[in-house]
């Protein structure tokens, strides 16, 4: 669960309304793979990820980024029950995908940076603070069913 005030929830939703999920999802995932290259270990089946250029133009990366951010966006509609909302995905990431939850935190950090890049001044310190709570909450929810 995240502890967001009503004002913070409004800030989060208002900003999200302006997000192009396809564009930002692709950017966030591709930046994750470029900035933290060891994360490519989960995507060997995506083809060429050997250089930053290859990653940034890889259609599978961009499509997957969109998928991930769409799911994140769904979570924003259930901020009072992130653990419940992401329960199935948590099990999937543990049992089938074998993803270390640290990677959710890395992606969360990258997402905040991508939002800052796109929204500039509008991404004020308090909007950032609200989003930091959200990404931490989502990361925790995705890690919750790990065993």
């Amino acid at each position, binding site marked *: 669960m995240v502890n967001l005030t009503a004002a913070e929830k409004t800030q989060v939703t208002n900003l999200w309304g302006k997000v192009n999920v396809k564009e930002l999802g692709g950017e966030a995932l591709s*930046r994750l793979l*470029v900035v933290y290259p060891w994360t490519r270990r989960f995507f060997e089946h995506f083809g060429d990820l050997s250089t*930053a250029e290859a990653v940034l133009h890889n259609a599978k990366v961009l499509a997957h980024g969109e998928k991930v951010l769409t799911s994140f966006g769904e979570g924003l509609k259930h901020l009072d029950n992130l653990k419940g909302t992401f329960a199935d995905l948590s099990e999937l990431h543990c049992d089938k995908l074998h993803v270390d939850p640290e990677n959710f935190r890395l992606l969360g950090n990258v997402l905040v*940076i991508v939002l*800052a*890049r796109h*929204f500039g001044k509008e991404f004020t*310190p*308090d909007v*950032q603070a609200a989003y930091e709570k959200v990404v931490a909450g989502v990361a925790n929810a995705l890690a919750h069913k790990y065993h």
Partner: protein
Amino acid sequence: MVLSDNDKTNVKATWSKVGDHASDYVAEALERMFFSFPTTKTYFPHFDLGHGSGQVKAHGKKVGEALTQAVGHLDDLPSALSALSDLHAHKLRVDPVNFKLLSHCLLVTLSSHQPTEFTPEVHASLDKFLSNVSTVLTSKYR
């Protein structure tokens, strides 16, 4: 994680574009850090941490100058930052986790002010640079 020649070029180019804004940007990063990660405020009980604080601005200038020093000595960070390394180890004793938080907020600040220049490769180089600076500053902790 060693800085490649490309990384060094990227870091120098970014910092050159930052120019005179270094103090302001670092002050902004500090403000972002205090808002997003309230535990970091525990190191500044003697400061006014409100928006626009003169003390935060002054601290931004200090840290900004240190980063400028670091950018000018990418081939020898341990030597260039030796005094600061001693200070953090023996006097300030800021828990190592906090360097990641400030580094993250510096990246947020830079990306918001330089959206075009902040490409994924530049992002990677800056992340590595800040990580190296953090490692040097905590290198004498024990």
